[in-house]
């Protein structure tokens, strides 16, 4: 039986009718039309479906929508809320050429955000380890890792400017 639930996605509230077996991935893509969230393997290995829930990167393909009530969900669409200016991570991905086919990009960027929120100046290996659960079929890992490093630098400088 469907339940009516309220989901907070990218700062907006959505009322949706969901079955208990519907994943967060299905509801975001099919009910709320946030198709920046991808579906890859469906088993938590590829990271294409990554979203942020209460500030943590999780696999939306392994999250039940009914368990998301009262939580803050963020998809790639919420990274640059104005729709005009890109988030520093996104900007860095564009500048460094860290996007090829683009399928892994939303998940990569959100996992990068999860890392940089916890560790503003990660080492090369820390970035590699943090992104270990995000696969890029184009194998463009080198540029992606460089982009995350550069974005971290930029975000750190921006927050230092803010506090000084």
């Amino acid at each position, binding site marked *: 039986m469907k339940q009516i639930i309220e989901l907070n996605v990218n700062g907006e509230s959505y009322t949706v009718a969901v*079955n*208990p*077996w*519907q*994943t967060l991935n*299905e509801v975001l893509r099919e009910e709320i039309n946030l198709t920046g969230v991808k579906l890859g393997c*469906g*088993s*938590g*290995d590829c*990271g294409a479906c*990554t979203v942020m*829930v209460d500030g*943590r*990167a*999780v*696999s939306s393909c*392994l*999250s*039940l929508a*009914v*368990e998301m009530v009262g939580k803050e969900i963020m998809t790639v669409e919420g990274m640059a809320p104005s729709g005009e200016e890109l988030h520093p991570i996104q900007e860095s991905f564009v500048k460094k050429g860290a996007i090829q086919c683009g399928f892994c990009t939303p998940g990569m960027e959100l*996992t990068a955000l*999860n*890392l940089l929120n916890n560790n503003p100046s990660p080492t090369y290996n820390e970035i590699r380890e*943090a992104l*270990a*659960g*995000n696969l890029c079929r184009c194998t463009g890992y080198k540029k992606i890792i460089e982009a995350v490093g550069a974005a971290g630098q930029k975000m750190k400088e921006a927050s230092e400017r803010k506090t000084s």
Partner: protein
Amino acid sequence: MRLSHFDYYAPTTVADAISLLQSKPDAHVMAGGTDLLIKMRHAGLKLKTIISLKSISGLNTIAFDETKGLTIGATALLADVAIHPDILKYYPTVAQAARGTANVQVRNMGTVIGNLCNASPAADNAPTLLAMGAEVHIQGPSGKRTVPLDQFFKGPGMTALEPAEIVTAVHVPRLTPHSGTAYISLSARGQLDCSAVGVATMVTLKEKVCEDTRIFVGACGPTPIRVPKAETIVRGKELTDDLIDQAGVQASAEATPITDVRASADYREKMVAVLTRRVLSQARKRASE
């Protein structure tokens, strides 16, 4: 592929969860869901009812007490165990095993207890907890009981849990003075993959003599297994490199690995000797620090 249809309950107390399990014998308990939902999607597991433990308050607690030791609640996340300051300080291999499980996303959803209750012989969090003499706290229709972790695993996917019982926490005692632990696992694709083989140990030294040790091997039998004869080789004796080599050879003889998609039996057997050697010398070093 979509999940097959099921009813979903999120009780707010352990007692309610147990009553639900009693009234719905085909129900399955779920914590993080990172194993269960994959089995449903890709391995044909069909469940009529899922009972989530996530709404039970307090079950995600990680508590450390100087005398009592460490208690990790049933819904405490792998990610939180991996960075908990007391666990990093007093139980570094417990944090290491949690950090070595799957990837960031799965660690943000999955739990240590879920990893144990799935009872995979390769469960990354089992060997080190076994070596440290952990016990699981269980609650069910007839009350509470405690089971040593080394009596909890009964076979692949099988545990000592009776119908309608739930593991509420795992408890790890404090290490005795002059003790050290170590855990090393190998897998084809770094930490992402399930371990192909892993060995954990705890060593207690008195001067240079190994007063006590526990050695457990993962992914080389139907459950993580203890290698008592290898322990006997070093227990009560001066822990020399030569003795450590002998213990490695013996551990390899006691392991009963099979060939599967992750590694051959032959490779596993050889690696048990290597890893046993390495963990014993690591633990010896930590015990003498």
